[in-house]
């Protein structure tokens, strides 16, 4: 009997595997675990592990990534309730964990169901990062970009990017990005034009100068388009119909094309004036994210 015992035990293995397979089939291969956070404050976790704050931050960050990935990939309801507290704990434990701010903000800001759809929480996180790491232009770059992209505030975004550009070692293109963002803000084109003109005049490399020229042309085109749109709207108010073509409202033929010399895309059924797809300026008009 004693000799047979190891063989009998070996027989148990396929039995266990069979039962496990049955359980997987019944309960699903990837079973969402009940997520719980027992400590909600980074300061409390910090107190629990003196001298080991960094490694605790790493562990919380790994948990954040797993939680986000798990919710996104496997959870049907896709609730991201623990995301903000997990990132808060991570960044309180290690206030210099730059990527936790940056990726954490992406996880939070992405619209549901790709992310948590909490753009304001993402911006709060990036603001905390900017306070903790005043020399990090990358966090401010993200903050400016997010403010434009998710909060629809290009002027605020551009202001943050210009602050970032003042940080030593910040790249010069932050200014160009700020200028491009300003171009999107109503009433801010004058400032954007100044910035692009400055970039154009100071740039030594031809591609940078060409890019600045293109943006200046776009600003001109945007002004011209808005003026045309105002004329079209006024025509509609006076005549009760949209003009059949732009020539009906504009005498000067030069105004019938954008700064690149391409005719406007005018929709006579809706009265909308747009930069035409054929124009090299169309890309800048469409590119909301810059």
């Amino acid at each position, binding site marked *: 009997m004693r000799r047979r015992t190891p063989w009998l035990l070996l027989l148990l293995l396929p039995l266990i595997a069979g039962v496990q397979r049955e359980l997987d089939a019944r309960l699903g291969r990837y079973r969402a675990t009940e997520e719980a956070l027992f400590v909600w404050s980074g300061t409390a976790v910090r107190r629990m592990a003196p001298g080991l704050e960094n*490694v605790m931050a*790493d562990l919380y960050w790994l948990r954040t990534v797993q939680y986000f990935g798990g919710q996104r990939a496997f959870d049907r309801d896709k609730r991201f309730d623990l995301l903000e507290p997990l990132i808060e704990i991570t960044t309180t434990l290690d206030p210099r*964990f730059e990527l936790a701010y940056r990726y954490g903000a992406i996880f939070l800001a992405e619209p549901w169901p790709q992310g948590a759809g909490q753009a304001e929480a993402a911006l709060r996180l990036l603001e905390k990062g900017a306070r903790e790491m005043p020399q990090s232009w990358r966090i401010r770059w993200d903050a400016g970009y997010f403010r434009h992209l998710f909060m629809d505030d290009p002027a605020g975004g551009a202001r943050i990017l210009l602050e970032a550009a003042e940080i030593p070692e910040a790249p010069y293109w932050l200014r160009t990005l700020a200028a491009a963002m300003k171009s999107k803000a109503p009433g801010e084109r004058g400032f954007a034009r100044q910035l692009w003109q400055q970039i154009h005049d100071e740039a030594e490399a031809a591609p940078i100068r060409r890019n600045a020229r293109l943006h200046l042309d776009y600003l001109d085109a945007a002004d011209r388009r808005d003026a045309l749109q105002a004329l079209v709207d006024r025509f509609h108010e006076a005549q009760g119909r949209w003009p059949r073509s732009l020539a009906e409202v504009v005498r000067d033929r030069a105004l019938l094309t954008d700064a690149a010399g391409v005719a406007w895309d005018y929709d006579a059924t809706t009265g909308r004036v747009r930069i035409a797809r054929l124009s090299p300026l169309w890309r800048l008009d469409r590119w909301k994210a810059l």
Partner: protein
Amino acid sequence: MDAGRLSRIAAVAANTHREAVRERVLYNLVFFAIVMILSGLLLGQLSIRQDEKIIKDIGLAAMDVFGTLIGVFLGVSLMSKEIERRSLYPLLAKPLSREEFLAGKFLGLSFTLFVNVSVMAAGLYATLLATGRGADPALLKAVLPIYQGLVLVVAIAVLFSTVTSSALAAVGTVCVVVAGRYSDVVRNMRDVVPDAPTWLIEGLYYAMPNFRNFDFKNRVVYGDPVGWNDIGFVTVYWLLYLALTLGAAAAAFRSRDFH
């Protein structure tokens, strides 16, 4: 110090080291520390572009935590064993003073810890090299203070085991080490208890071994400059505290009646 005294201390130290490396628990702890350091390889993969930071954080934390466990275990067990098993008596009957015995024990344990920390540091460097990261020599500026802290843990464990049983010595050592890690909380105690007398807070703060002094992990991992001046001051603090602890241990050991 005469040559005879030195050779007696060296003999006790060598025996202590030999005895320590026979302990199975020591190997288990070192094994787990190495596994933890190597786990940085896997955890780094899950972390989104933070593998180097995580490998370094985990490696240094493993050295710190497992080193502390080894320090408490070795410091308490090897000293208390001699007393509880009465193997100390024939030794003291020989021309070997109690101070020499204590110094030999302490040096043997410190050397054992040095070997362990070296093995763990080699594991950390191997992990970094395996992931294509350079062998950052600045890491040694975190490893050296960790080792100093661990030696202080051993000294405290030796002090406790000269005055009490092994169980109580282990509890006492752990309490002092944990309290020493919370030294900043003690210093800021008035924020929570405004009525607490300043002399009490300051007395506690300066009397306890401040283990936060030996923590350069964060600065080293983030590549902040760590001056040798800072490490020098920490070394002075360490030597002074070692002198105090071992002096107290020697006094207690001298006055202890083993009959």
